[in-house]
């Protein structure tokens, strides 16, 4: 074995050892700060997340509608027709979220 080969083997062994220690690190920390079980969502959590998404989507759509109306892309008539249902959608999502919070 040449000195180059010996150096390569030593370096490879060091690389492997460092990697193994790094991979094992989560098991070397006691106690593990975050607990060992992954978070999972209950059906109620999923529904709340869906409502929050719906609320944010409706609010963003309202903002966009306002801007499109201001730039002339949406006519007054179209604006009047669309703004009501969007406001209602946002309000319903907020109400459902609030109801969930108070009953949760």
């Amino acid at each position: 074995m040449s000195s180059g080969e010996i150096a390569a083997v030593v370096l490879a062994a060091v690389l492997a050892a460092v990697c193994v220690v790094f991979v094992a690190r989560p098991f070397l920390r006691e106690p593990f700060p975050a607990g060992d079980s992954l978070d999972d969502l209950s059906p109620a959590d999923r529904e709340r997340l869906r409502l929050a998404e719906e609320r944010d989507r409706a609010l963003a759509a309202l903002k966009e509608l306002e801007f499109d109306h201001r730039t002339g892309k949406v006519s007054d008539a179209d604006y009047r027709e669309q703004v009501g249902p969007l406001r209602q959608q946002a309000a319903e999502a907020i109400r459902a979220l609030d109801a969930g919070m108070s009953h949760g």
Partner: protein
Amino acid sequence: MPELGRAALVVALGLIAYSALAGAYAAVRGRRRLLDSARNALFAAFAATTAASVVLLVALGTRDFSFVTVAKSTSRELPIGYALSAFWATQEGSLLLWLLVLTAMATAALALNRRLTSDVLPWTVPILAGVEAFFAIVLVFVSSPFATQPPPADGLGLNPSLQNPYMVAHPPFLYLGFVGLTVPFAFAMAALASRRTDERWIVATRKWTLGAWAFLGFAILLGAKWAYEEVGWGGWYAWDPVENAALMPWLVGTAYLHSVMVQEKKDMLRLWNVVLITLTFSLTLFGTFLTRSGILNSIHSFTQSSIGAWFLGFIAVVAAASATLILVRLPLLRARTKLESLVSREAAFLYNNLFLVALALTVLWGVLYPILSEAVRGVASTVGPPWFDFFAVVFGLPIVLLMGLGPLVAWRKASLRSLGRSVAWPFVAALATGAALLAAGAGSSPAGLVGYSFAAFVAAVIVLEFARGTRARHGLGDGGWISSFAGLVGRNRRRYGGYVIHAAVVLLLVGAVGVGGFSTTREAKLGPGDSVQVGDYTMRLLGSTQERGANASEIRAQLAVSRGGDDLGTIAAGKNRYFAEQQTSNEVGIRTDWLRAEDLFVIADQFNPDGSVFVKAIVNPLVNLIWLAGLIFVVGSLVAMWPDAREQRRLERRFAEQKAFARA
């Protein structure tokens, strides 16, 4: 030190295999420590792959010909820049580059989305590891860059066509694009596997997708610039299978980038988006298969090899696994809202999606046709550029028109009257452009005429969108005009960055139509002192010169160029004869007129003993708009990708709300 390279790759494979298995077990059982350990293994795999890459780079830099890869792709006289670029010129090196980029991107994606990938999408880790495992297995068992041999006195050198600065840059950008698209694919599959199909995976991967798509688009243009200069037929895109290999995922990725906005805004197209990102990722693998397998004849014949079966197998596994997962999770992918009107932004996105995917599948059919015809009839028939050009026009023109119409249509529903009002000025611009071109005698190419009219339509829409938006913000009291403009772009970077990208596409279209429809070619055998006229240029052969370059003998025809009596200097075109490679390359002469954006493109062939030279000269009008489009494309992509702190805060608030509630 080939042993170190080999060992580093074995370590990387071990880490990746552990990550895939331990990560999958942790995701199924909900074990946080094991998942963290699996994620650390992917980080460590990046370190090990980097070590292997450094070994190969050092071997290339020092021309260690005991490495088979180094001996077959470099020589002692090869300039150092090209010697290092041989990393991705060989099959083994390019696979190593793929693994290096993939492990780097996986590390970055997991580190930047640490909370998301451990709590919400734990399957991201094993899925990324699964993709990495394929490349690591091929590198360790099939195509190692660290194979050794008794060192020869000199190497075989690098294929001359690869000795070009654009080809030095093209593959790394291409891989950043191809490999970057693994991240949204992995997150999408993880979202399905983890039953978390809410908006988070899309938000987390938005910039990754856009970045990878931008890299891919930029790489395609770098490749086109290389083909223009190095392949030397005067064009920039030849519908070559390997060129198409990069174009297909870019087209489907473009469709995905648009349709994912519909999911964000309207909670529609969930299934379509997952299918699109899967198709995009599969096409990146298929593209690599095409490039590396040598299954098709291509101008990129330097890439032929024998790992095609491995890639086909992996593509089949990816397609089968993704399709199964999508089918199993179909109930989670049902849309909650419906299309309200056929005249709406989301409908426009849907139409653009259909045309983009149709174009991509048509290109795919054209690429596969020789293979299928050989399998069925025993004779390999090919479809040529006219076939591709036809479909590029059929599907491309509606896409350009929709690029203009889409931004003018409101979300949800637009009345035809308000759409008509918005379209009026762009329509006038399109008509005026068409009429002006007809009057100027440019009606010889009807598709070109329509293309230019549509380009004018889109350009007018972009200008109007910026102008109306700035005026609206100014009306809201957003300071002066400049701060109103900055506020407009800053508050909706994706939209206005997207418009800049649309402007780049318009420029590209104008340039492409200019070259394709209005170029002038002239061929002549010139003796010393003879002249030839091409377009409004006159070229006179002054004589020929021969010099010794770093690693080649360079023969050039020197031609004096003039236009309308004005002396425009000389242009040199000829050939290089490479010593180590024992190959000859065409070295074209190009004179660029930046004001007209046109090139005088000269190919010199047949240097005869009597001093005469056969010359082919082409005037390519507007060709430089194609390269300018590349730069504008990069600027638009950067604007669109720039982090938006307000949006980040909004999302964090939503999920903090959720967490706080879950704890309460």
